[in-house]
């Protein structure tokens, strides 16, 4: 590996890190604004113009609060929990392709931190590890509400990962590759997967709601029953890490949805552009889609009440998994038919 390549990757990582954290921070602001709009209110508007500095104020507040560890908590696990949650949330962003290659200083810069050939598996893997952050945090708190939240979160995430994985398999079958860049490239122009796999999209979307622990599947937090669930005992920036990790994963899962189903950086009429113009327009398209899905996530959160736990399990095991398996089988049959295997 050459030095220039190293610098390029380092710059990309730092940029992605900054952008992810920035978007996550402003997602908290935007969430409060969206909630306010849906409820005929104004929302935060005191810190700076239109309340633009609200995330800074929130972060500052969390930093200056007392960093408290309960006497009966497992100290190291208690500290590890938010760390794992944040780490896994940030890692998933690294394999997402943000746009086509950019030409900079005579070099080709791929706008993707790591184009590994099993990108989507990588994301699924890190989503699964994300359970550990919640599970460990809830366990280490030594509090029954935290433990309840952690148990709910883990059972929920494990059940919804199955249906999610099967939906991903249908997409992988269609594109013939596990690499996210290949998946995006097969959706050239307006040839998006959502038009071929609407059912898989709906199931994947529902599962990502469950995976990010957002309403209507926020049983792990569940203020009204579990007083915040797994982060009941957390305060200060550890709490901030959990909340932040939730918004980071909100951002990455929106990005994954737009990559898998909405063509990532593809947009209609992209053949008229090339080179850097195409790359920049691709970034714009990608982020427009991502922001749209972040908005939809928030829209759903402020519309739908929370599921009951038995409803959640019914939906996961009895509806989503069978439907996604049938969907996968039909997709397989159609692909086999098109390839001429039945002749």
């Amino acid at each position, binding site marked *: 590996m050459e030095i220039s390549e190293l610098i390029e990757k380092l710059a990309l990582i730092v940029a992605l890190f900054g952008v992810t954290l920035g978007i996550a921070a402003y997602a908290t602001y935007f969430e409060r604004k969206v909630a*306010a709009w*849906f409820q*005929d*209110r*104004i929302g935060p508007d005191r810190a700076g113009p239109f309340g633009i500095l609200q995330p800074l104020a929130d972060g500052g507040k969390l930093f200056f609060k007392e960093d408290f560890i309960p006497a009966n908590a497992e100290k190291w696990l208690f500290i590890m929990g938010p760390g794992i949650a944040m780490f896994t949330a940030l890692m998933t962003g690294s394999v997402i392709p943000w746009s086509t290659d950019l030409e900079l200083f005579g070099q080709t810069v791929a706008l993707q931190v790591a184009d590994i050939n099993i990108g989507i598996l990588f994301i699924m893997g890190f989503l699964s590890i994300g359970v550990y952050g919640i599970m460990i945090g809830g366990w280490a708190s030594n509090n029954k509400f935290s433990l309840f939240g952690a148990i709910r979160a883990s059972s929920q995430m494990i059940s919804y990962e199955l249906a999610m994985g099967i939906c991903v398999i249908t997409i992988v079958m269609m594109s013939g590759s596990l690499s996210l860049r290949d998946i995006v490239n097969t959706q050239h122009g307006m040839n998006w997967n959502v038009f071929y796999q609407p059912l898989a999209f709906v199931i994947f979307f529902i599962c990502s709601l469950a995976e990010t622990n957002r309403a209507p599947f926020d049983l792990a937090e569940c203020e009204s029953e579990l007083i915040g669930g797994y982060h009941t005992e957390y305060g200060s920036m550890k709490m901030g890490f959990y909340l932040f990790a939730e918004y980071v994963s909100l951002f990455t899962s929106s990005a994954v949805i737009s990559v898998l189903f909405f063509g990532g950086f593809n947009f209609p009429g992209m053949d008229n552009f090339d080179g850097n113009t195409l790359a920049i327009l691709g970034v714009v398209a990608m982020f427009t889609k991502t922001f749209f899905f972040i908005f939809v996530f928030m829209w759903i959160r*402020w*519309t*739908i009440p929370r599921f009951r736990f038995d409803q959640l399990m019914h939906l996961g095991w009895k*509806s989503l998994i069978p439907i996604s398996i049938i969907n996968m089988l039909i997709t397989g049959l159609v692909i086999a038919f098109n390839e001429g295997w039945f002749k």
Partner: protein
Amino acid sequence: MQSLSNRKKVVSNKKMTFLEKIYLPAIFGGMWITFKHLLRKNNTLRYPEHTREFAPVYRGQHVLKRDEEGRENCTACGLCAVACPAEAITMVAAEREKGEEKLYREEKYAASYEINMLRCIFCGLCEEACPKEAVFLTDRIVPTNFERDSFVYGKDRLVEDINNRIDITKRQHTGKRTEK
């Protein structure tokens, strides 16, 4: 059994239809409702910059009026204290001395006049009871404080300043004494 209140509701546990079972139509319906609220204008009043306009008959902090020549109207008759349902008003009467004609309108006046703003329910009965048109409720808000004692308002805070009259015409037809 015959329902007595006519508010009895029969609980039905009917099976959900297919459309209800897949939840999605209901969810989209709900999202459409919230989306309409997104576009709606909100009614929020940005408080410190804008204050809500009071109704003309708003009953706030009391004032002890002076007459046109600046003499205190109150004669310490005690009718307001009698009328007060919250027993918030106390007063001590005193006789006017020679040379005090410029200060007090009649021969008797209130040496001290106290309203406990924590007891007061701002019903306005004191104002109704007052035969001398001395005590009125105004559109001013009693400010908050951390000490209970400071809510007992004496004459220093109740009697209006001679150069800075309190306008009560908004909720009174005149605010001036009529001959009886």
